[in-house]
């Protein structure tokens, strides 16, 4: 799986295609099992409510994995992803739709590397929330 995006296709400001996903309780149970993160915030509504949330929330790393998927589906080359930094700034509740996106902010022709602003948003009560905000990815293309 190679050849989705070429370095020559990019310019500062190029937007990457957003990737949306509805987050379900089954997703979060499967992620807890696969990752080994069994924090009750992600499994037990009562524990989540005691911690100040309205119900269980997705793992930040689940949302970051979705962001990585968005980038790899765009480049069609998992080897292109060199670095990803995510700042977790809002919870994600079950049934919500997370949308990953990004924009090229700098290009380095000597290494064929693109630096991207990346994020994940959720629409909640008419407001855009940022489960992943002001984060950064580095992509190297063939």
């Amino acid at each position, binding site marked *: *799986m190679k050849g989705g995006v070429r370095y020559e296709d990019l310019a500062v400001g190029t937007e990457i295609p957003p990737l949306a*996903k509805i987050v379900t309780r089954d*997703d979060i149970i*499967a*992620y807890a*099992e*696969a*990752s*080994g*993160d069994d*924090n009750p915030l992600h499994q037990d509504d009562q524990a989540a409510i005691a*911690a100040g949330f309205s119900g269980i929330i997705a*793992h*930040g*790393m*689940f949302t*970051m*994995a*979705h962001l*990585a*998927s968005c980038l*790899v589906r765009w480049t069609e080359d*998992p*080897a292109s*992803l*060199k*670095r*990803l*930094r*995510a*700042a*977790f700034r809002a919870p994600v509740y079950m049934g919500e739709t997370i949308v990953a996106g990004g924009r090229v902010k700098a290009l380095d022709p000597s290494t064929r590397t693109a630096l991207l602003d990346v994020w994940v948003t959720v629409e909640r009560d008419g407001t855009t929330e940022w489960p992943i905000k002001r984060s950064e990815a580095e992509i190297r293309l063939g």
Partner: protein
Amino acid sequence: MNTALEGKTYEAVTLNVDAGFVARFARAVADDGSFVPPTIVTAPEIVAGLDHLVADEDLGLDFSRLVHGDQEYEWLRPIRVGDVLVVESTIESIRFKGGHEFLTLRTEMHDEAGDMVVIARTGLIVRGEP
């Protein structure tokens, strides 16, 4: 948290990246299984890092107030099926600010040849009493 533990390195753990584990993780993050999800390294990172932090009585980390603030991965090469990763976590810093505690954990992953494959950095926040 006990700041005297800055610089502490925990016992390394070994992960076999076998096809079954890759398939399970790919399903869990809704990938089609045609490639190894880059964030599959979260699983060994939790075992080598977070699990040790929570179990370390000298550290005094309050798990019930723990929030994941930031996460960074640097992949020096992609993860492949068949990789055997040796994963080791070190407490990089412990800071206090605004009533909250901040712990930065650095995790390095090497392959069987001893080459570095991934550097991970996790920012954990233990929220202060409201």
